[in-house]
């Protein structure tokens, strides 16, 4: 994938999603550049997960556009892609890490098969080469190589999450969407995962969109922050600026509510 410097990787313009008369998210706009990490924070019901689903194509936005930079074609309207094109995109240039790793993995095949699947889906037909890519990525996410043929049913929560990351990264995506990636994990496991994500971002020049309710996660990982409440973006800016100098009442509430150990 070529390096590109001419404009944002992702352009989100006025994305709105209604569920009947209920607002999921309203009029969300932002640009995302290569190598940037955007955090989207808010409490339950803030619309952040709806937004993520609208971006990934899992839900179709009621209005608004999502444009993604695709090489020679420039910025392409993701909503106008055909089903096969979108599925291809989700399998190559985009990654999706779900809160519950069991939903993002095939639990009935081995860890190695999980990591190699995208390669095989894209036409890789040399077992030896697939296998060495699998080893490389398992190693990169710090999963013991001896577990390559084990079923993910035998993995801990943190390992499952790292396996999910490896599964997504094997095709070197440029954009990864993450939904509460540290949810439900022990604190030390969270630390390890966040550390991994940081180094992957800087090593691979990944762009990330992380949806979370955990301010510590965004403080650590995100360059920029969107604060959502009741489906709307109430504040946005550099992460440290939003957290240290919150302007909106809700942001101030959020920041002051965090219990410092």
């Amino acid at each position, binding site marked *: 994938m070529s390096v590109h410097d001419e404009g944002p990787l992702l352009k989100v313009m006025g994305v709105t999603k209604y569920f009947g008369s209920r607002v999921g998210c309203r009029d969300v706009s932002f640009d995302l*550049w290569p190598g*940037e990490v955007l955090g989207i924070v808010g409490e339950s019901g803030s619309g952040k997960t709806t937004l993520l689903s609208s971006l990934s194509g899992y839900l179709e936005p009621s209005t608004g556009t999502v444009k993604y930079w695709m090489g020679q074609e420039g910025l392409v309207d993701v909503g106008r892609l055909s089903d096969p094109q979108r599925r291809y995109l989700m399998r190559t240039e985009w990654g999706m890490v779900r809160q519950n790793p069991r939903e993002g993995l095939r639990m009935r095949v081995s860890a190695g098969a999980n990591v190699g699947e995208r390669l095989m889906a894209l036409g890789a037909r040399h077992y030896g080469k697939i296998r060495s890519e699998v080893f490389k990525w398992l190693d990169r996410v710090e999963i013991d190589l001896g577990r390559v043929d084990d079923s993910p049913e035998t993995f801990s929560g943190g390992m499952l999450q790292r396996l999910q990351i490896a599964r997504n990264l094997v095709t070197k995506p440029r954009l990864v969407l993450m939904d509460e990636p540290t949810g439900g994990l022990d604190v*030390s496991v969270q*630390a*390890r995962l*966040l*550390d991994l994500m*940081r180094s992957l971002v*800087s090593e691979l020049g990944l762009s990330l969109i992380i949806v979370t309710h955990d301010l510590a996660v965004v*403080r*650590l990982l995100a*360059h*920029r922050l969107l604060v959502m409440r009741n489906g709307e973006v109430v504040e946005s*800016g*550099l992460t*440290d*600026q939003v957290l*240290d*100098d919150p*302007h*909106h*009442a809700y942001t*101030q*509430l959020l920041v*002051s509510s965090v219990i410092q150990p």
Partner: protein
Amino acid sequence: MEPMIVIDSLRKSFFLHLQGGVTLSVLKKISLEVKAGECLALCGPSGSGKSTLVRLLYANYKARDGKILVRHQGQWVDMVKAELRKVLEIRKLTIGYVSQFLRVIPRIPALDVVMEPLQREGIAAHNARRHAEDMLTRLNIPQRLWGISPTTFSGGEQQRINIARSFIKPYPILLLDEPTAALDATNRRVVVELIQDAKERGAAIVGVFHDEEVRDAVSTCIFEMTFDGGQA
């Protein structure tokens, strides 16, 4: 020497929704200029907005009125109005910041924390490591601590990691907020040396120095601030 920082009529207030809508006015119309090779010491009583001013320079706080111009790669950029990407670029290449607190990510060894600003620019790991080791040695951080995460360090040790990280790269602009607060005399002297070196190579420095001895040793000019956030 050419000016590197120009602040014009800067104001800053905080509106605290949670305290019944109280407005806290911290800075009232500040203007100043710092040239390359100068070290401007912000002085004034507690509450006069010294730290706030430093944070505004780093865009850690957001101002609404006034201008904060910094010289970035030969151009003037107004931090108040600049695009976020530009601010991130300025922080990466032009402005180094020693804050009062070191925010540490667990698991990252001290050496890596110090190396990071160099590696971000693409400097090879082994070179970056050498510079980091020199810096840590200079700041009297014992070698046995180099491979450990600073989360377990004492306040003074953490402060020195903070300093190492900001001085390892020759930033054109340095912002120092109480850089010697937790340090003993030996290390205070090291920091003074580092600041002198930086001045000599042409860095423009804005600092808050509680320690009068340090302030007298490094500053080339004093900026007095009043208790209500104005300039004297």
